[in-house]
């Protein structure tokens, strides 16, 4: 087996990142006001993301995963607790944070190139630098031949590449991905996972990935956080032990099965809670 596939067998015990925190949540809760009641969606949650770490969050539907991402992105403020990025409290969308959403967020009225350049133009960047960055991102995401195409002319996977390229050009230090491959077929997801790992290695950004797919989390991440049913809290942290230079071929290793089994062991209990609540 190549070094790329070599996974260290590590104890699958709850762990937290040991490096200095790039992003940090402490006692974060989020409660939504409904017309006749309130909904405690999240927390209290504690989380440290190490700089350059690839961290994934898995959990049952409606457990507050996307709410957690919104708080880190500055799109939503916590009711209580603190959220920090690079040592500063998160108030609004912080500089250096990029988000890729599950839904297609490409702008249908702009071609691929203009979509990718959108954020840079809003930031008032020098046109030569915009061109340089867009050329790189479009090439990196394999969109060179589609630069003049409009999103309606592209497949779902290609449109998601456009959205990733649009995030990539901003050179974010923290990339938040909210089930970005949720709408794609299994093969495309695996390949997009490889692209994502390549992007992570080249940019050295910290990545937080929200996903429903245990295999995706197990394959891509350095560490996976398992969340409970609503109100979501972390009930386990699983270190994968993969080397940084890895790709989707790790799915064929026994260690991948161990990680997935460990994740499912925890998640199954939470999923059963939801099912029995539904039956009740």
């Amino acid at each position, binding site marked *: 087996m190549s070094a790329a596939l070599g996974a260290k067998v590590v104890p699958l015990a709850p762990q937290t990142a040991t490096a200095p925190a790039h992003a940090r949540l402490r006692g974060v809760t989020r409660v939504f006001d409904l017309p006749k009641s309130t909904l405690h969606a999240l927390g209290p949650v504690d989380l440290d993301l190490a700089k350059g770490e690839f961290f994934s969050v898995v959990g049952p539907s409606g457990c507050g995963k996307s709410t957690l991402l919104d708080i880190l992105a500055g799109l939503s403020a916590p009711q209580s607790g603190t959220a920090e990025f690079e040592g500063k409290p998160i108030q609004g969308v912080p500089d250096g944070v990029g988000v890729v*959403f599950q839904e297609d967020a490409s702008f249908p009225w702009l071609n691929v190139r203009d979509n990718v350049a959108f954020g840079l133009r809003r930031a008032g960047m020098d046109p030569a630098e915009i061109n340089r960055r867009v050329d790189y991102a479009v090439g990196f995401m394999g969109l060179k031949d589609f630069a003049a195409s*409009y*999103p309606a002319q592209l497949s779902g996977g290609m449109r998601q590449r456009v959205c990733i390229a649009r995030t990539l050009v901003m050179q974010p230090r923290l990339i938040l991905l909210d089930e970005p491959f949720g709408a794609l077929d299994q093969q495309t997801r695996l390949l997009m996972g490889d692209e994502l790992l390549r992007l992570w290695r080249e940019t050295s950004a910290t990545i937080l990935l929200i996903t429903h797919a245990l295999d995706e989390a197990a394959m891509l991440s350095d560490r996976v956080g398992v969340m409970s049913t609503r109100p979501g809290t972390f009930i386990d942290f699983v270190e994968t032990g993969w080397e940084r230079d890895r790709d989707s071929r790790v799915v064929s290793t026994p260690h991948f099965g161990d990680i997935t089994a460990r994740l499912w062991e925890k998640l199954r209990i939470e999923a059963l809670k939801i099912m029995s609540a539904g039956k009740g």
Partner: protein
Amino acid sequence: MSEKLLRVIVVVAMILLVELLCRIGVIPRMVMIAPSDMVVELGKILASGQFSADIRITFTNIAISTVLSVLLGFVAGVIIYSLPSLRDAIEPLLASYYAVPTFVFYPIFITLFGVGSASIIAIAVLLAVVSMVTATLNGLDRIPRVLRKTGQIYRMSRVKTALLIELPAATPYLFTGVKLSVAYSFIGVIASEFILSGAGVGYAIAYAYNLFENGHMYALMLLVLIVVTVVNTFLNVIDRRLQARRQR
């Protein structure tokens, strides 16, 4: 055979049939002149300039009515969209609006604006504006939430998000409102000229009808048909381009 070709064949066949029925006297000349004669008559009246003032007045009124309907409808749509309780209250009224025969209000407009272009434009706007309001509401409703979130991620102001994301995202739906506004403006202006005007193409058609001047009447009707067809073809080309980009 393509749909387009079949459509052309059907239209040409209908025209040829009418031409034949007119030429052999099945349709008397007092009822209708042959289509080829309509073309000749149209050429004559355009060359003579006999109806140039009427044509200018009508199409100016249509243009003013369209612009006013689009602007007022868009602004009203945005206001209604931003006030959900107002929207809940008036949406049923908007839905049943076209059940009201707008032309019954013409005495009110004559009292307010007098006989002339202002009354005609008011009726046409009244007829057209609600289609633009409805299209604006529909367009704003259909902007994907994720696009607004993307604007937040780029830390864009509310105004920039509206101009650079929401407006382009809603454009295909807004354009449907523009198309309907143009159609209703044509109907509103020309129909109003029949009943409350002393000038304009509608008035000239009614005048020719009353004097049995079939040549003038059909020539002017043909002119309206040609202009409506050209304008609609142009709008449909733009619409198809916008809709093609919307498909995802």
